[in-house]
């Protein structure tokens, strides 16, 4: 049963804040703008918490709070057997409760941080207007009760990220980064839109609650034997890769660092990028269909992205770029969690990651704030003494993300690793070409999950290594920047450091919510909270295996940190430089992000420009316009010129014209008809041959003669009948002579035809 609750207030408040700031911001002054911005988000947070409280206490565990903001349909079209009714409805169930809390509270913290960070920026009111707009759109995305409403939020956040990345539009590279983000998101949205339309075309409704009841139709094979649900799931997953920066469409996130740091923290760490994971979790019904190819793809891409991003993160020099690749990698982890069926683990990691990743970015912000905007870590060093609070909060975040025991990272990452290890996919009942059924079964059940686990383990190792490399290079050793930078080094103001501390506390505490059962029997409170909404993981692991996995994970983290300590403590050590020299090609490959950007440029961007140019200059401007359109005009005008010069002014030539004209008409009307009539049509039935004169209506008044055996003697003379038949006695080939004559003028024409008689 769904209780109703004024959910529309949650997205509406930030939107109102945005409108006020954008329209009236210039006149309100910085204080008022900040108040309106943070106030609206705080109010939204309170309402959200109240809603989650109501959801938690009353109502059934699997129920949801529903709010139909408009009673009438938003978009509707009926009458052709498959009526489309899309209404602007909002829904809060246990899954979206987690998301709402994360978005609102962490969003609030970042808003407060931003009031300090953006202190002396001229576009102050515009920034907070966009930020509130983003919050509104994100809340619509999370609270949407059907795919179209989610899609509205989906595109809304895409636009806000475009505006915020390109916030300092004065430089071209920021604007280009914003545009790149929006277009890559748009490619993702292309997939999401198609998935939505395909789903609608099959079951006629798009509400999450109703998708479950139509699973029967979705299992029917749509194409190549795969069920429709698989295709829809994959299409939606394309949308998610676009939004959550997974392998094919991840190139926009590192460039998105061009935006202000609070933006990176809010959008590109905590909220927007996680929308993909949320949507996959929300539509888990589609992914759980029998041949779990969709889930295998999700897990595969997640793992690959995790490792790729982690390896690239190792060699980067820019502070925020390292964190960006870290986010991509952690998102990979979440997708593996969701992909392998451990939905709760995925969402749990999403929640914990929001805390420490937001903290990391804010820390980076305060460092760059102190360093006067300098982002290259090789020019920093030894900042620990100058920024104590930032340093110690950074220390906690690094521990958390590396996955050290008591902190959040350990529990959520471990849950995902366990889920990966225990995953069991079913691909198909019959073999694929050379592979027998058993081998396929064996592969999907054992080899593939283990492969994913090992990729994740390697990614975890790299994560620990590059985070602590960052920590040691920035906060330990001696300062490598310029003198006046060192002179300016100062701790950030309280409205920046307080959120850091809160997030640090969160990074520690957040993990305890989901302690795995094996350690503490009902410790997995978070899993229990999500159990009624999301399906449980495929099957349980034995205790010994779980302990073993935890131990392995912990060891990997420790090894990562230790090696980072050896190589980078007190600045980049000599050993690190020599390693970079020896592995030069590998170093370059990683530093240039596996050359994926250049690949896309060569494969997509440049050909697009060239075909555009070709289509415009060659096809449009020349072929269609010049040749087809103006060609005709030129031809007609040439004809006109020719006709005009016929008239040279001499009277006698005109008179000749009159005579020639009369003669011409005489010729046309007298000799032409017989000629057309003579072109007869011959039809043959065995020995009977019939002859039918041509020329249609213009053969009135003509006479015909025919000589069947061309023996010089006209068999039929001057008959008026235009159809003549003849019965040939014997076999053989005969030549028929046919003549049509106009008796009035004596003009005639003859045709002869050879005919074979059996």
């Amino acid at each position, binding site marked *: 049963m769904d209780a109703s609750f004024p959910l529309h207030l949650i997205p509406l408040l930030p939107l109102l804040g945005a409108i006020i700031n954008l329209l009236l911001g210039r006149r309100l002054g910085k204080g008022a703008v900040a108040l309106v911005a943070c106030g609206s988000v705080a109010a939204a947070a309170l309402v959200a918490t109240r809603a989650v409280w109501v959801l938690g206490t009353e109502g059934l565990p699997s129920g949801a709070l529903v709010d139909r903001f408009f009673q009438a349909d938003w978009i509707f079209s009926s009458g052709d057997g498959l009526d489309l009714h899309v209404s602007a409805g909002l829904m809060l169930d246990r899954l979206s409760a987690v998301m709402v809390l994360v978005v609102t509270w962490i969003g609030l913290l970042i808003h407060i941080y931003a009031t300090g960070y953006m202190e002396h920026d001229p576009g102050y009111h515009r920034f907070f207007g966009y930020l509130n707009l983003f919050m509104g759109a994100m809340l619509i995305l999370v609270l949407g009760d059907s795919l179209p409403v989610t899609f509205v939020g989906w595109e809304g956040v895409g636009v806000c990220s475009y505006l915020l990345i390109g916030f300092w539009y004065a430089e071209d590279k920021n604007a280009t980064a914003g545009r790149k983000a929006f277009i890559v998101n748009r490619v993702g949205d292309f997939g999401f839109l198609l998935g939505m339309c395909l789903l609608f075309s099959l079951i006629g409704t798009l509400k999450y609650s109703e998708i479950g009841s139509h699973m029967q139709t979705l299992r029917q094979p749509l194409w190549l034997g795969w069920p429709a649900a698989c295709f829809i799931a994959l299409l939606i997953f394309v949308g998610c890769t676009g939004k959550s920066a997974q392998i094919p469409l991840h190139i926009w996130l590192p460039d998105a660092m061009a935006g202000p740091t609070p933006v990176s923290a809010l959008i590109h760490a905590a909220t927007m990028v996680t929308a993909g994971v949320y949507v996959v979790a929300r539509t888990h019904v589609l992914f759980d269909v029998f041949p779990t190819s969709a889930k295998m793809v999700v897990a595969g891409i997640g793992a690959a992205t995790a490792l790729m991003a982690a390896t690239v993160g190792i060699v980067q020099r820019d502070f925020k770029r390292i964190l960006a690749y870290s986010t991509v990698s952690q998102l990979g982890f979440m997708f593996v969690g969701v992909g392998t069926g451990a939905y709760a683990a995925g969402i749990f990691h999403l929640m914990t990651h929001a805390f420490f990743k937001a903290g990391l970015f804010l820390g980076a912000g305060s460092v760059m704030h102190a360093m006067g905007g300098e982002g290259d870590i090789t020019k920093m060093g030894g900042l620990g003494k100058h920024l104590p609070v930032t340093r110690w909060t950074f220390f906690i975040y690094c521990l958390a993300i590396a996955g050290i025991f008591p902190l959040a990272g350990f529990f959520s990452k471990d849950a995902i690793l366990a889920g990966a290890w225990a995953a069991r996919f079913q691909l198909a009942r019959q073999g694929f070409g050379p592979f027998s059924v058993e081998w396929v079964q064996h592969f999907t059940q054992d080899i593939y999950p283990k492969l994913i686990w090992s990729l994740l383990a390697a990614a975890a190792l790299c994560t620990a290594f590059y985070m602590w490399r960052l920590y040691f290079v920035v906060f330990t050793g001696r300062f490598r920047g310029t003198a006046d930078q060192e002179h300016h080094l100062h701790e950030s103001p309280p409205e920046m450091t307080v959120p850091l501390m809160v997030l640090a506390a969160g990074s520690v505490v957040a993990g305890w919510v989901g302690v795995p059962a094996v350690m503490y029997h009902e410790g997995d409170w978070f899993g229990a909270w999500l159990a009624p909404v999301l399906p449980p993981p495929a099957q349980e692991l034995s205790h010994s295996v779980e302990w073993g996995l935890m131990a392995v994970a912990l060891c990997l983290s420790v090894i990562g940190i230790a090696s980072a300590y050896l190589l980078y403590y007190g600045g980049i050590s000599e050993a690190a430089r020599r390693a970079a020299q020896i592995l030069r090609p590998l170093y370059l490959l990683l530093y240039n992000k596996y050359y994926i950007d250049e690949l896309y440029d060569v494969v997509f961007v440049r050909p697009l420009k060239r075909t555009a140019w070709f289509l415009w200059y060659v096809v449009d401007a020349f072929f269609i316009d010049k040749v087809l359109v103006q060609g005709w005009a030129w031809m*007609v*005008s040439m*004809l*006109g*010129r020719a*006709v*005009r010069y*016929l*008239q040279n*002014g001499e*009277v006698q*030539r*005109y*008179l000749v*014209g*009159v005579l*020639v*004209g*009369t003669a*011409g*008409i*005489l010729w*046309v*009307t*007298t000799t*032409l*008809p017989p000629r057309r009539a003579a072109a007869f049509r011959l039809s043959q039935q065995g020995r009977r041959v019939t002859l039918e004169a041509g020329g249609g*209506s*213009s*053969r*009135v*008044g*003509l006479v015909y003669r025919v000589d069947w055996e061309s023996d010089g003697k006209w068999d039929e003379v001057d008959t008026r009948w235009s159809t003549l038949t003849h019965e040939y006695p014997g076999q053989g080939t005969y030549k028929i002579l046919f003549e049509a004559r*106009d*008796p*009035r*003028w004596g003009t005639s024409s003859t045709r002869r035809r050879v005919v074979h008689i059996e």
Partner: protein
Amino acid sequence: MSFDLEDLRRTAPLLLLSAAGLVLLLLEAFSRVRLIGRHYHKKLPPETSEAYAVPLAGSRTYLMPLTVLFLAAALGLVVWLWPEAAEPHYLYRRMLVLDRFGLLLSGVCITAAAIGALGAPAYLREQRMEFGEYYALLLLSLAGMVMLVSAADLVSLLLGVETMSLGAYVLTGSWRRSPRSSEAAMKYFLMGAFVSAILLYGIALIYGSTGTTELAEVRAHLSEMRSAPVFYLGMFFLLAGLAFKIAAVPFHMWAPDVYEGAPTPVTGFMMAAVKTAAFGGLIRLCVGGLTSGRVPEVSTGPTGWVNVLFVLSALSMTLGNLAALRQENIKRLLAYSSIAHAGYLLVGVVALGVVGDAARAPLIYYLLGYAVTVVGAMAVVAALAMGPGQERLPIEQWAGLGQRHPAMALAMTLFLLSLGGFPPTAGFFGKFYLFRAALQNPSLLLLVLLAIVNSLVSVYYYLRIVTAMYFRTPQEEEVEGHVPAAQGALRLAVLLAALLVLGLGVWPGWAATVAEAAKLAG
């Protein structure tokens, strides 16, 4: 055998016009004139001759109103005879016939002549060729037209054509000061005479083969004509003669030169009235004389007149439009456009042969619409083209006229749109009405499509003039002092024509019903 007075009453318009012509001649004879030598007109081309009579300025101002009065009276007579002409009466021993078709077409000719005459004095005074005979010739030529249109006998057909043409030859050459006018007259006369000889020879042959020159009789004798080749040759010569008059290709070569050379009001008169009368004669001949149910091959046979006119129509439309495309001189452009319109009208005549009586009303409506449009257009050309020395004919010189003479330019645009066949005008409804009749017989679909393509091509050169008038900026400054003498009369003429064109376009109902009622004798 008595002379029936009734006949006189029934040919009242014809008689009135002739009498009016003579009266004007006499009036002209008694008005004052001054002999002058060459030195007076310095601007004349060197080779012009010594001395000739030049009418005193202002001595002829009363002639135009008188002419218009006579024309109005003639029109009144036409309207008066209209109810009586419900069923045809044969006059003068079956030489002429009084029927609604003849009356309507003569009404059209008279209206066109009246509008043309209204606009004439301004132009004539400007070009200093003010003389009375102009109006006399106009009326006499008009009398010829009325006779041609209501001819029931080949001989009266010939006489009508001759009277009309002779008047036209002299009018064309009446602009003594311009060498072009005399050259045009010479060409027009020579070809006209040559073709009227052919016409006469045709009549002789037909008389020979059918034994009579009366159209109704000819039709009766079609089944048992004495010798077919003679008859068909005679028919061809008759068709050739009339095709020359309506300037259908290949008999069109005279038209551009003559229309360009003749003074503009005369060109307007020739384009509108002469062409309408010629078509009237052609319809009389083809429908009245050469179509009979029992002998279809004379009309729709391979050598029948429908085939001949089909070819003429296709040629005229195509060549007329193509030649007009690159034309620079406005009068020559409108000449070629009138050849093209002869082609469209021939589609109607062909439809008369193929579809029968359904095509008669559209043809008459199109004739009315076309005549009014062309006479209006030429009146505007006369008004706008009046430069101090040379007439402003090349289209470049029309640049920017939209600014300087907005009213005239707007009227000209309306006329051009009507010629091009754009909706709210008479031209469009005419074409629609004509194609509606033609399309009832699938064999004409090809001709209609050709007409459609041609009217598309024609839109280009009509809009070229509009483009020049409105979109281009004028090159040389208008000589301020010189305000064209086109006062009230010419403006009234243009206004009348414009109102008729627009009225026929927006409320074609009444014109269509009148055209429907205009039955053909026999």
